[in-house]
């Protein structure tokens, strides 16, 4: 695995998700690029790498940008773990597994944040939020995860893929 390239890619993902995304809001929706990356990484590199990347990226995000420290770290860590659950359990060309995993993780993450917002005194209306933000967000995140999965597989895990080592164990 090309470790430095991986670190650079994760830094770029962090930059896109936290700094740049606010400048390019498409119809008000933004994909959770970091979650998508963590899930794709978990599927390709295993639960330990996925959850560690999720924990580090989430914790930095929380400390620098967020109101509640630990929530992003927790959700990204579990997303990496969820992706890692499918590590070497299916054919590498299968895009459905990472896509669906990212969508489920995004759905759960947004609900965790919704509960946190409610507990902090906020009043986000559930069904309106679900229709106008959570669903578009998790669909976009799933799509981004598929793209990132392809990118990671070719750019970072190519030797493994060529040897078909990510097939059934």
């Amino acid at each position: 695995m090309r470790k430095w390239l991986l670190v650079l890619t994760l830094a770029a993902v962090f930059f896109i998700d936290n700094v740049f995304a606010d400048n390019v809001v498409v119809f008000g929706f933004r994909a959770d690029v970091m979650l998508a990356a963590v899930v794709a990484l978990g599927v390709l590199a295993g639960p330990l790498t996925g959850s560690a990347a999720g924990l580090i990226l989430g914790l930095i995000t929380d400390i620098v940008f967020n109101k509640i420290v630990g929530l992003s770290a927790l959700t990204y860590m579990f997303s990496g773990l969820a992706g890692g659950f499918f590590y070497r359990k299916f054919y590498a060309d299968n895009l459905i597994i990472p896509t669906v995993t990212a969508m489920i993780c995004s759905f759960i993450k947004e609900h965790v944040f919704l509960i946190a917002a409610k507990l902090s005194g906020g009043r986000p209306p559930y069904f309106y939020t679900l229709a106008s933000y959570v669903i578009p967000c998790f669909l976009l995140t799933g799509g981004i995860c598929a793209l990132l999965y392809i990118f990671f597989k070719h750019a970072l895990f190519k030797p493994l893929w060529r040897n078909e080592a990510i097939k059934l164990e």
Partner: protein
Amino acid sequence: MKKLFSNKPILIMVIAVVLLLVLAFFSAGSRTIPWLENTVGAIARPVQTVAFKVSNGIAGFFSNIFNSTDADLELAKYKQELAMYEQMKLDYNEIQKENERLRGLLNYSGSIGISDYVTAKVIGRSNGVWFDMITINAGRKQGVETGMPVMCGDGLVGKVTDVGSNWSKVTSIIDSSVNVAVTVERTRDNCMVRGVFSPNSAKSELELYYLPTDLTDLVPGDIIMTSGIGGIYPKGIRVGTVDEVMLDTDNSGVNAVVNPSVDFLHLEEVMVITGFGGEG
């Protein structure tokens, strides 16, 4: 259970989950940031400042391209020898704009009688839509404390909720958990505004509620400003203008939709009012 504790990865995961939950619980309110978090924030601050500038630059570049009607002519026009001149012109414009913004900020603070303040640059915004926070490059070392009100040349921005050594987090008034005591400038009615949750971060609104007088008194375009009641925000800072007046049919207490006077998406410089008692 014994098997669970002998499995190291699961044990580490359980400990991490517990620690993160404890962290989340204790970090939910206003606080002074502990040393470890402060260190990470201090390390990230310069990177963050550069990243924020770069992202604004990239966004501005693409915005210019899409707004251009004759991009090809533009490209042909700019020769190699003019590149440096153009850059200087850009720098000059940027400085001029910054100067105008700071001058506006200064004039505005003077007009409402605020003399003790710290100016700061916005270096980050919270991701996602659930919380509306900004990160600024001033902290404890500059005299910033939790609870201090934050404003810009256009009006009220929010209040400081977390303070690091040279950076702070500000919860903006458009966060759905924030309530501000306000006055309708024309009628002098006291009421409250609170942030409205919006799934679109480009669109921010406030809702005005607890208006004690007849609704007919309030009309779209009325200016809303802080009342000073509660002692959190100084009196007379502009909050927004009434966009739509609504009948209180469902007893929700909402009387109007208010457009905030501050453009939170393009906020660059703010002023932390240090000379006001506040709640901190």
